[in-house]
C-alpha cells in the first residue's frame, strides 16, 4: 500500500507539470461565455492545446512514435491527464477519437486511407465522434436498425443515430450499421468511418432537460460510403463495438464536480438560530456519508491505476465508482436544495450560491445516472461479470434480428 509515485513516476510528473505550466492554454483571453466547453472559443483553444501537445511529444502518450505518439507507458499517460486536470484543462473534444475510436479502427484496418486520418487527429485538426446509439438501441446496444445495403463498391445507408456527444463539432464519425437483419442481433452488424459532411448526413442538436446541447441526433438519408471506409469484416461490426468499449474502460474518467467539501462550504454559509447548518447533527452525519462514498470513488481510481501500473487489465471497479458518483451526486444536490430551503428553488447565477451550480447539477445529475450505461446496466455488469450470476433470460438469443419483438 503506497500512495506515492515511484522515483521514475515522480520525475515524469515533475517534468510534465513544469511543461504544462509553461505551455497551457490561456482561456482568460476569451470572453467568459466562450470559456465553457462546447463553445467555439473553447473548442479552438483546446485544438491549439492538442497541437501544442503533439509538438511537445505529449499527445497520445502510449502510442508508438511512428503513429505520432510518445511511446510512453499507460501510467505516464495517466500522470499527464492528472496534471492536466490539476491545471484545470478540460478537453472533451479529442478524447473520444484518440482514446476510443482511432485505436479501434487501427486494430481492424491497416489500409493507407484509414491510416491517413491519424496524424491530423493527433495534431488536433480533426475531431471524431461515435455514431453507435439509436432511438431503439440504448441499453440494448446491439439493437442497431440503421441499414447499410451494398451497391457495387458503395454502401447506401439509411437510419438514425442519437445521443451523439459532440457530433455537431465533429469532422469524422465511426458508424455502426446493420447489414444482415436475418442474422441474430450481434451477428449482422458492420462498422464504417465517414466524414460528417457526407451528403445525406444531418446533425441536429438535442436540447437536454438542463438546457444545453452537447448531445445530437444524426440522420442518415441515402448516405453513400465507399467500401474502403468499412472497418473490419462485413457483419463483424460487434467486434469493433467491443474494441471501443474496452478502450473506454481503460480511459480513466477525470474527476470533477461538486463534492462533500463544497457541501460543507454551503452549510457553513447558511445561518440557523444556533449557528449554521454546519452545526446540525443530521448534516454532520450526511457529510460523513458523502466523504466516505466520494473518497472511496476517488480511491477506486487509484486501485484501477494500480492495476494498470502492474500491467493488469482493470476490473469492473469502474462500475462501482460510476454508481457511487451518479447516485451520490443526485442525492447531494437534492440535500443542497433542501438546506437552502425555499431559497433553494432560485436558479439565478446572481442570487444562488456558487452562481447556481447546485441547481444546475441538480438537473444534470439525472443524465449522470443514464449516460455511459444506466445504473441498471452497471448493476448487471457487476452481477454478471464480477459475481458470476447468470444473465437474465434472453428471449432474443439466436433469433433473426428482424423477428425480435421491439414494441412501438
Amino acid at each position, binding site marked *: 500500500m503506497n500512495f506515492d509515485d515511484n522515483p521514475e513516476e515522480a520525475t515524469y510528473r515533475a517534468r510534465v507539470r513544469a511543461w504544462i505550466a509553461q505551455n497551457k492554454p490561456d482561456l482568460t483571453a476569451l470572453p467568459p461565455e466562450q470559456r465553457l466547453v462546447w463553445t467555439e472559443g473553447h473548442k479552438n483553444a483546446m485544438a491549439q492545446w492538442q497541437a501544442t501537445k503533439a509538438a511537445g511529444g505529449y499527445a497520445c502518450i502510449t502510442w508508438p512514435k511512428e503513429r505520432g505518439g510518445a511511446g510512453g507507458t499507460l501510467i505516464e499517460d495517466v500522470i499527464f491527464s492528472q496534471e492536466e486536470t490539476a491545471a484545470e484543462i478540460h478537453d472533451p473534444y479529442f478524447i473520444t477519437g484518440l482514446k476510443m475510436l482511432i485505436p479501434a479502427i487501427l486494430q481492424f484496418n491497416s489500409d493507407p486511407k484509414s491510416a491517413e486520418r491519424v496524424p491530423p487527429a493527433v495534431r488536433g485538426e480533426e475531431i471524431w465522434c461515435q455514431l453507435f446509439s439509436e432511438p431503439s438501441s440504448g441499453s440494448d446496444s446491439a439493437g442497431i436498425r440503421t441499414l447499410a445495403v451494398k451497391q457495387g463498391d458503395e454502401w447506401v445507408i439509411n437510419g438514425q443515430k442519437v445521443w451523439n456527444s459532440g457530433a455537431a463539432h465533429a469532422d469524422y464519425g465511426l458508424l455502426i450499421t446493420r447489414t444482415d437483419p436475418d442474422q441474430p442481433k450481434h451477428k449482422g452488424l458492420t462498422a464504417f468511418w465517414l466524414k460528417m459532411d457526407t451528403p445525406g448526413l444531418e446533425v441536429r442538436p*438535442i436540447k437536454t432537460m438542463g438546457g444545453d446541447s452537447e448531445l445530437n441526433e444524426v440522420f442518415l438519408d441515402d448516405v453513400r460510403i465507399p467500401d474502403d471506409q468499412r472497418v473490419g469484416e462485413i457483419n463483424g461490426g460487434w467486434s469493433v463495438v467491443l474494441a471501443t468499449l474496452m478502450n473506454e474502460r481503460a480511459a480513466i474518467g477525470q474527476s470533477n464536480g461538486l463534492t462533500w467539501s463544497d457541501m460543507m462550504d454551503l452549510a457553513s454559509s447558511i445561518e440557523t438560530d444556533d449557528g449554521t447548518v454546519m452545526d446540525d447533527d443530521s448534516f454532520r452525519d450526511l457529510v460523513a456519508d458523502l466523504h466516505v462514498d466520494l473518497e472511496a470513488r476517488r480511491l477506486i481510481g487509484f486501485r484501477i491505476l494500480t492495476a494498470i501500473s502492474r500491467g493488469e487489465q482493470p476490473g469492473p471497479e469502474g462500475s462501482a465508482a460510476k454508481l457511487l458518483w451518479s447516485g451520490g451526486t443526485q442525492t447531494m444536490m437534492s440535500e443542497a436544495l*433542501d438546506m437552502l430551503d425555499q431559497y433553494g428553488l432560485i436558479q439565478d447565477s446572481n442570487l444562488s450560491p456558487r452562481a447556481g451550480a447546485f441547481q444546475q447539477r441538480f438537473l444534470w445529475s439525472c443524465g449522470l445516472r443514464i449516460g455511459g450505461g444506466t445504473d441498471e446496466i452497471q448493476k448487471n455488469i457487476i452481477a454478471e461479470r464480477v459475481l458470476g450470476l447468470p444473465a437474465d433470460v434472453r428471449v432474443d438469443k439466436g433469433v433473426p434480428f428482424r423477428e425480435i419483438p421491439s414494441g*412501438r
Partner: protein
Amino acid sequence: MDFDYTDDQKALKDEARRFLADASPISVVRGVLEDPARGHDEELWGRIAEQGWCGAAIPEAYGGHEFGYVELCGLAEELGRSLAPTPFASSIYQFAEAVLAEGSEEQKQELLPAIASGESIGTIAVSEGPGTVSAKRVKTQYANGTLTGTKLPVADGMAAGKAVVLAMGSDGPVLAVTDLAGPGVSRQMVETIDPTRGAATIVFDNAPAQVLGSGGDGIAALARVQDRSAVLMSFEQLGGADRALEMARDYALERYAFGRPIGSYQAIKHKLADVFIRNEVARTSAYYGAWALSTNAPELATAGPAARIAGCNAYWLAAKENIQTHGGIGFTWEADPHLHYRRARHLGLTIGSVKTWKRKLTDRLEAQRAARQAEREAA
C-alpha cells in the same frame, strides 16, 4: 370508519380531471415553460376561476362555494396531476387559508370574495434568504402600518395582487397583509428550477400594510396556516407523484430492450413498486391530513407535517425514477418527465423543505409526549 373519498367526491374529481385534460394539456404547461416572461397561464386561470374552484373551501359568507375541504383536496390532486401552471396553490392553499384562519371578520369580508372568484390572486411572502425561516432571523420590518424589507423567493409574486407578509413588528414577528400593486412595492421576476410556477423578489419600502387579525405571534400563526397549506399541497404532490408513476409504467410497457418490454425486468418492476409504496404512504398521510383539516381536529398538528413529508418524499422519488425509467429520452427537454422533476422540487421547497418539516413534526411529537407524561404524573 370511512377513509376514502365519497362517491360524490370521486365524481367531482373525475370531472376535474376531464376539465383539466381539456384546459391544461401539456402544451399549455410548455407554453409557460418556454416563455421566461410568464409565470402562469392566464386563460387557464380564468377557466379554473369560472369553475368556482377558488372558492371550494371558502364559506359562502365570503363569496365562496363551500364545497368542503375534502373536495378542495380532490381538486388539488387533479391540479398536481396535470401540472397546471396556475397560482392556485399560492392564492388558495396559502393566502386564502391565512386570511380564513388568522384574519379578522372585516379582513375576511374585504379580501376573500375576490380570491374566491379568482379575480384577485394572493400569495404569502416569507423567505428572505438561504435557510429555514425563524423568528430570530426575520429582517423585514413592520412599523407604523408599513412594511420595509425584501422577500425572495415569493411564489407567484408577479401574478399576485395581495400578499400576507411575515415581518418583525415592535413586539415580535407578525403577519401583515398588503397590496402588491400599491405604493412602496417593487418586484422583479426571479428564475427558479420550475419556470411553470412563477416567482419574484419583492422589495417593500414603507409599503402600507395591516396586521392580519388581532396580531399576536406571527410565527405561531404562520405555523397554523402552513399546517393547512401542507395538507392541500400534499394532494398536489400526490397527484403529481401518481402521474409520474403512470408515465414510467406506460413507458416501461412500450419500450423494448433485448426483445421484451423493459417493464418485464425486475430492476424496473421493483423500482416502480418502491415508487408505488411511497405514493401509498403519501396518499394515506394526505387522506388523514384531509380528515384532520376538514374536521379541525387537533391531530392536524402532526397530520399536517406527516402529509407534507410523505408528499415531498413521494413526488421526488417518483419524478426522478420516472426520468431514470425513460432513459436517454427522459433527459431531453422535449420529453415531459423533467416537468415533474422540476415541479416535485418546487412543491418540495415552496412552503419549506422536507427537513424543516421533519423537525417540526418531531418537536410536536415530543411536546405531546411531554404533555402525556405531565398528565400521567398529575393523575
